[in-house]
C-alpha cells in the first residue's frame, strides 16, 4: 500500500522565542519645543526611543539573525522595537496626542510584571528630548495573554508590589485627582469582572491610587486609541472607569498602577489585550 505524502504546513520554527505580545503607549498633553531642537526635520521618535532603549539595557535584540554577526551573543531585554511617532494616522482629530510607541514585550519573568514602568520612562524620555511635556493622559495597551504562562512565586504573586514603597503615599500636596479607564475590545472580559477588579485594585494599590468611584461606561466615553483595532480586538464596547487620587502624577506611578491592574486582571482570568487610559482629572 503506498504511503500517503504529508505536505509541509506553516508552523512554529524550532528556534522560536515567544514574546508576551504587543505593548503600546500613547502620551497626551502639550509639548513645548526645546530651543535646542530647532532643526528640521524634527528628531525621529523611533530613533530616540530605540537609542534610549539600548542605552538603558531595555532593548531585546535576540530576534535578529542572518547577518555577518550570526551566532553572536545578543542582548536580552524587556522589549524589541516595533514603531513610534509624534503623529498617528489613526489618532482622533480632536485629541492632544504628542507621541506614541509600539514594542513587542519580551516573555515576562515569573517574578516580574509586564515592564510598563520602564516602557513609559523610555517613552517620556524620548518625548522630552524634543520638548517639555505636560502630560494630560497616558494610554497603554497591555498584552495580558503574555501573563498566562507566568508562574508567580509565593513571594511575588503580584510582582509590582515588590516596588510599592518607592512611591510617596500620603502626601496631599502632590496627590493628583485621576481617572483610570480599563477596557478590552469587543468582549466583556473587563466589564464582567468590574467589581472584583476594583476590589483587587483597592487592596493592592491603596496609597498609590486611592479609588473613590467605580462605574461602567459606554464606548462613546472612551478615548479612542491611536492604533489599529486588530491589536486588541477593538473597538471597545464598554469599559470600567475608576476615579480617585494618584499619589503623584508621574509615568512611574501610572506605569506601576498599570502593572498592578495587569496582574489583577490576569488573576481574574483576563487573557486578552487590555487598554488602560489614565487621565489627570
Amino acid at each position, binding site marked *: 500500500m503506498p504511503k500517503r505524502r504529508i505536505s509541509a504546513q506553516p508552523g512554529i520554527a524550532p528556534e522560536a522565542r515567544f514574546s508576551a505580545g504587543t505593548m503600546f503607549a500613547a502620551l497626551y498633553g502639550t509639548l513645548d519645543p526645546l530651543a535646542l531642537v530647532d532643526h528640521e526635520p524634527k528628531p525621529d521618535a*523611533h530613533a530616540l526611543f530605540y537609542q534610549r532603549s539600548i542605552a538603558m539595557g531595555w532593548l531585546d535584540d535576540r530576534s*535578529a539573525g542572518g547577518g555577518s554577526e550570526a551566532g553572536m551573543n545578543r542582548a536580552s531585554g524587556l522589549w524589541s522595537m516595533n514603531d513610534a511617532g509624534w503623529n498617528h494616522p489613526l489618532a482622533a482629530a480632536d485629541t492632544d496626542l504628542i507621541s506614541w510607541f509600539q514594542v513587542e514585550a519580551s516573555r515576562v519573568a515569573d517574578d516580574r510584571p509586564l515592564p510598563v514602568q520602564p516602557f513609559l520612562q523610555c517613552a517620556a524620555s524620548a518625548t522630552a528630548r524634543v520638548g517639555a511635556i505636560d502630560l494630560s493622559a497616558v494610554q497603554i495597551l497591555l498584552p495580558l495573554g503574555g501573563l498566562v504562562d507566568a508562574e508567580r512565586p509565593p513571594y511575588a504573586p503580584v510582582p509590582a508590589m515588590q516596588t510599592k514603597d518607592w512611591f510617596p503615599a500620603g502626601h496631599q500636596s502632590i496627590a493628583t485627582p485621576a481617572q483610570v479607564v480599563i477596557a478590552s475590545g469587543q468582549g466583556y472580559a473587563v466589564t464582567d469582572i468590574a467589581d472584583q477588579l476594583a476590589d483587587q485594585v483597592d487592596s493592592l494599590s491603596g496609597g498609590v491610587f486611592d479609588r473613590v468611584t467605580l462605574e461602567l461606561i459606554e464606548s462613546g466615553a472612551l478615548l479612542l486609541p491611536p492604533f489599529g483595532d486588530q491589536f486588541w480586538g477593538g473597538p471597545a464596547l464598554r469599559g470600567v472607569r475608576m476615579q480617585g487620587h494618584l499619589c503623584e502624577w508621574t509615568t512611574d506611578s501610572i506605569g506601576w498602577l498599570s502593572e498592578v491592574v495587569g496582574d489583577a486582571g490576569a488573576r481574574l482570568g483576563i487573557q486578552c489585550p487590555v487598554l488602560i487610559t489614565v487621565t489627570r482629572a
Partner: protein
Amino acid sequence: MYNCLYEWYTDNSWRQKACSPRKTLRPYTGSGDRTVARKNCDNTVQTSWRNHVDVDVVGEGDTSEWPYRQAEVNCRVF
C-alpha cells in the same frame, strides 16, 4: 531597499509570502521612511515569520549578508 516576509514550514523551509516595492530612502529618518510588505492572514494560528531586509547602499558595493528579524505572530498564510 526592500523587505520580504517569509513563513516557516514544517519541512524546515522559510517560504517567501510577500515583498515590498523597492524604494530609495533618505538617511536619518528612523521609521519616517519605510518599506512595507503586506499579506492578509488566512487565520490567527501562531506561526513563525521572518522579515528580511535587503539594502543596496547608493555608491557602495553590496555584501553577502542577509539579516532578518524573527517573530512568532498570530497569523498563518496558506
